[in-house]
């Protein structure tokens, strides 16, 4: 099995000190800054941790490699698992600070997760709010064999198809990485087209609409025409909203394609070719037959990938509610083959020596 969404939590900003320049250590100590903790996972909310994942010593769930092994990697027989660290680098408006902390998180991931556990791969955390700086971080670390993906929070200052992000997409394509658009994000602008909702419940459920906007943006801006090898994973997005979104986007393209002539094919074709989605949360109807109909409506059995989303908790276990109702061949695709074909699992080092743990280095 391949698990496309595991979370490694930064236990505290102090855990990054071995990987931070002294300037930023002093800054954090002077300001008592707790780190970019504008998280999309309120610490004690039901979504943030399965009850059995909470750690007794006060560290956040998901910050223990031993627990991850015991809870997921060993019992499920995981061959590869992808770490998605949701540290809110995107919430930092100070660009130097964002770069320093992103570098520190990635060096921490290498030293404390990837080098310690060969089954793990990871997503690069980048200062996505300044695409040129994000590209620099991808160039610094993108050829490390442990990094298979660049993490992009679903909420952003601008939709990811925007030309502002071309340096980012070029870097992702240059290093043949997957772009993983993940639930969450803290860019400062509202999470809906109609302003700020009151409740986390709304932000949580409403993230599907943010994903829909991102998918539309990537297609209509022609990102997949510009970077034909690009692969985009939607993580913790749900997927049952996608078929009717495909229909809508195809219809709009038929009517309005003269506005975006670089979009050569119906949007749903780009989506099937370039986009994959993880299956947790499931967002399933009560009737499994209807769920299977929605899956058929996707028009491809290569789009879905298994994810436990450890240690987060959602309403349903996708193995129980979904996978066991599928033919064996399709289950195998979702559990491993689709992700196997999508990611670069056994990268060779291309970019020469990787610099890790640059304490005291430049800002």
């Amino acid at each position, binding site marked *: 099995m391949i698990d496309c969404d595991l979370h490694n939590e930064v236990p505290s900003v102090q855990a990054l000190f071995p990987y931070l320049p002294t300037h930023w250590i002093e800054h954090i100590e002077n300001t008592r800054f707790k780190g970019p903790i504008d998280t999309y996972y309120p610490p004690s909310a039901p979504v943030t941790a399965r009850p059995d994942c909470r750690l007794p010593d006060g560290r956040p769930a998901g910050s223990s490699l031993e627990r991850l092994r015991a809870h997921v990697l060993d019992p499920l027989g995981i061959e590869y698992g992808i770490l998605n660290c949701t540290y809110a680098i995107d919430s930092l408006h100070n660009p130097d600070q964002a770069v320093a902390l992103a570098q520190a998180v990635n060096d921490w991931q290498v030293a404390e997760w990837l080098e310690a556990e060969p089954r793990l791969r990871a997503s690069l955390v980048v200062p996505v709010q300044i695409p040129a700086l994000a590209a620099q971080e991808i160039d610094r670390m993108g050829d490390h064999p442990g990094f298979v993906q660049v993490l992009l929070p679903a909420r952003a200052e601008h939709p990811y198809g925007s030309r502002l992000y071309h340096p980012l997409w070029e870097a992702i394509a240059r290093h043949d990485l997957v772009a993983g658009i993940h639930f969450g994000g803290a860019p400062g602008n509202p999470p809906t087209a109609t302003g700020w909702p009151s409740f986390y419940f709304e932000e949580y459920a409403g993230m599907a609409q943010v994903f*829909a906007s991102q998918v539309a943006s990537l297609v209509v801006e022609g990102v997949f025409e510009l970077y034909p090898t690009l692969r985009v994973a939607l993580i913790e997005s749900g997927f049952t909203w996608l078929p009717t979104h495909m229909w809508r986007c195809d219809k709009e393209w038929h009517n309005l394609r003269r506005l975006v002539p670089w979009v050569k094919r119906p949007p749903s074709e780009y989506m099937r070719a370039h986009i994959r989605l993880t299956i947790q949360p499931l967002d399933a109807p009560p009737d499994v037959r209807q769920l299977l109909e929605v899956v058929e409506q996707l028009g491809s059995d290569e789009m879905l990938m298994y994810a436990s989303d450890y240690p987060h908790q959602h309403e349903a276990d996708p193995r129980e509610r979904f996978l066991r109702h599928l033919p064996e061949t399709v289950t195998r695709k979702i559990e491993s083959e689709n992700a196997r074909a999508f990611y670069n699992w056994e990268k060779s080092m291309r970019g020469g020596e990787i610099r890790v743990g640059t304490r005291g280095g430049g800002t």
Partner: protein
Amino acid sequence: MAIPQVDVTRKTPTGRGIIDCDVHNELDSDRDLYPYLSRRWRDHIDAYGIRYYTGSFYPRFMDHRADAWPPSGRRAGSEVAFARDHFLNRYDIACAILNPLTPVGRQPNLELDAALATAVNDWQIAEWLDVEPRLRASMVIPYEDPPRAVEEIKRRGADKRFVQVLFLGRPHEPMGRRKYWPIYEACSTYGLHVASHAFFSAGNPITGAGHASYYIEDHIGPPQAMQANITSMVAEGVFEHFPTLNVVSVENGFGWVPALMWRLDGSWKLLRGEVPHLKRPPSEHIREHLYLSTQPMEEPPRSKPRYFEQLLEHYGYTDRLMFASDYPHWDGDSPEHAVPAYLSDEVKRRIFFENARALYRFT
């Protein structure tokens, strides 16, 4: 898309005429409102113009249907006599609901917004409702200034030709927020529904991920905004407080409804501790209180008509869908082609007539 020429003797799909839930009465220019504005506001507009939340405008793909422009040279949709001959008579429209898309709801100057709302409603009465008995109208209100909106509802609420109040698709805050509750209270008192018509912006980027680039994204976006609005109304408990209130979603599509209900119900099971006032699954409130107009429909690939039947079945009910033409806009639906031909006569009769008749209590 242009409505094709048809034989006027042809029977309508329902055999009883059609109720059209979205016809647009348009201003040829803002000066059409001058007879209904005080000197103070005429002078203001002469000097400063009508300003909007600037920076959120996406020029339309094309202007109104070419065949809908009156011989007088005035704007399509701005002459009741022409619309009557060109549309109402030709398609045996038993009743059409006017949705005036005007500067109201988009004025940073809230006092001007209120003055414009009063003027638009007076214009609707004098130049549309008094002239053509088949017309009903949405009352425009300055909804970003609820006390003034309530004044307007009180002023015109007894006129039964106003069947609902009109929100544009992306108000400044999600529609369930407490700010708007005095409006819902007044609507409940006067038996008015609340309509939300797609598009526009009251100061927020048009996606939950920032400003999109193209009009096609503006045109793909209404389902996302409407989902945020109905999620907000459910989450805040609007329907628990105002049990007779109904929401009419206009030009927002409806293919997204099943997946939204599944996601909301799952999220509610997980996170109901945050919204303890919400006693029932969100989908039950949506089923009871949300009505949707058909145009523009999310349509599956032509080779897969059964996907549409599946969508209706996932939706679970056909008594909430109501035909809308969007006349005279470029992207409108013809009554001849608005719904798939293979739907049963009974379902068509409901969509074209019965559902709206029941909602608006027409006899």
